[in-house]
């Protein structure tokens, strides 16, 4: 890390779940900047700096993308495929964070080059532990290419 605060792009349509992630990152990873978009189309707009996100100041390049799969408008899997086939975006780690534990979803996500696949635990302490470890791993230990 080069000292700048890491940017995490959270793509999550459920406001309550976004709030849970926001609280955890505020508690455990206060140095990070959490940017939240509520659907797949907004995620793409953010990454390509279109529409509401044309201002680079409002859409800093993320260090990590947390991506839900079931999203309105453009589906999470579509967003993943777009990122991973774009030479300018494909090196950004994408962690799938979803309620679905379905085998088909996992297979499709990894086939589309997701970097990790996490299922939101129903149990609260486990959810908290997951978010803490996730931030620690991807924001502290993991080295991204420049």
């Amino acid at each position, binding site marked *: 890390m080069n000292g700048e605060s890491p940017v995490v792009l959270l793509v999550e349509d459920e406001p309550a*779940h976004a709030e849970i992630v926001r609280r955890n990152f505020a508690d455990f990873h206060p140095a990070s900047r959490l940017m939240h978009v509520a659907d797949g189309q907004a995620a793409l707009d953010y990454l390509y700096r279109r529409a509401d996100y044309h201002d680079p100041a409002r859409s800093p390049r993320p260090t990590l993308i947390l991506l839900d799969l079931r999203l309105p408008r453009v589906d999470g899997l579509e967003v993943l495929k777009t990122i991973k086939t774009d030479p300018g975006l494909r090196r950004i780690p994408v962690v799938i964070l979803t*309620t*679905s534990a379905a085998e088909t979803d996992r297979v499709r996500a990894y086939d589309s080059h997701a970097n990790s696949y996490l299922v939101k635990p*129903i149990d609260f302490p486990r959810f908290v532990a997951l978010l803490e470890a996730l931030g620690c791993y991807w924001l502290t230990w993991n080295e991204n290419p420049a």
Partner: protein
Amino acid sequence: MSAETDHRPPSLREKAEAMLARSHRERVDLAPVEVGRIIHDLSVYQLELEIQNEELRNTQSQLARTRDRYARLYHQAPVGYLSLDANGIIQQANQTFADMVGRSCADLVGQALTGFMAGSDRGVFLGRFKSFFNSPEGKRIDVALRGNGARRLTVRLTARREVDAPGPLQPDPFKPLLLVIGEDITERKQAEEELQRLSLVAAHTTNAVFITDAERRIEWVNRAFTRLTGFDLAAVRGKTPCELLQGAETDPATVTAIRAALDAGQGYEGEILSYHQDGCTYWVQLFIDPVRDADGRVTRFIGVQTDITARRQARLELQEKNAELERFIYLISHDLKSPLVTIKAFLGYLEQDLARSDAGRIAQDMDYMRAAADKMGQLLEELLNLSRVGRMANPPTRVGFRELVDEALRLTAGGIARRGVEVVTGEATATLVGDRSRLLVIWQNLVENSVKYMGEQASPRIEIGVERRGWELVFFVRDNGMGIEPRYQEKVFGLFEKLDPGSEGTGLGLALVKRIVELYRGQIWLESAGAGQGTCVRFTLPEAVEDRSEAQP
């Protein structure tokens, strides 16, 4: 006399001596010269007689051989021979016939032929026998005879008059006899009956059957073929099923597969889209089998087609329903799990915030929990509605289109008033027959949706109506709300699909409407020029619209 004279039967010599004694001939005394001459002459006569005798014996044995040969021919003929008198009594029978009825030739003589017949055939035979006997030419009688044991055989009788030919029990040479030829046609008869049954099956089966020659030109089709394809035999003879029944939408790969199988002399089994004479398409299960001659050459093809359009349709619908169900279970597990995750998480936060007495966070935590619990409740209720659409049917009633719209507007009046929506209903009307409460759900949901997605529109407006398009009545609910981009227009009818993450819906409303429309064999689609351009939902209800003539232009 030579020694050979001793071989003559002594009785003959005795007879000759006796005859000589009776004749009282004078004894004649002869000179030795004369005696010598006479002995010579007698010797010559004797030799001549012996030669003659030899010839006679040869002739006799030849005659015997000939007689034996004819007897063999008679007895071993491949058909039964019978000589019947005018009363139908057997005067003579050959071995073949005796074998048929399991008796000896000698046993048969003197018996009535009817004695060997099955009961029902006796009367028939007797009724025809006189005419058969008097002029048998060109006539034939098939009778069932009792054979060996329980065996029954069918024998075809033909005959000719046998005149002036006395049999062993036939003292009167002028008493006429009938020479009857009995041919065992049991197997042929069975084969014929089998063939008859088969042709009955082919002619009357509901499967379409065609028979082609080796070059696949049609020789015969059954009635079901005509019913299925619209072509009768006259129209198809000499043509190939391929040129008649296949069309633009028939899968070329299937056609190639059929050709390859038939070229290789193999059968084919598969499904193929076929064309009726009038151009309509239907699906058939097709079986084609080659027919070979004794040398293994393909001489014909027999094709059987079964109309599986309905079955196939049902199968596709079932597959679609299964896919929908699978998707449904997947989605429901996601959509029910999501609020549960929320509730558990904020319950955890609530504990922490209570301990810290953080009033602001406590209120926020409870809001999230309440919203999640509400979402779950709403989801369960709508799921229940959705499952009811398929299960609980009220008896169909007649209801006017206007009446349904008015009631839908009453049910949604709160939302309409809050948003200040102007509602316009057209003049056109229609009468529907169906489950009133289900039909009502269509307009209620569509109006609710229009109100919900009115967006920033300053003068919101909803138009509800029905119009004629060709032969059909098309209903519509049009608004000037936020609209929907063309690429999402199909997606919104899917289960749990929401376009607006901020909306409070569960994503089941339009899926429910679509299911009701499909229940009445209708279609539903969406027209919108895009975001901010308003939305028009159109749908048809063919099985609920009472009078189709209303839809005529």
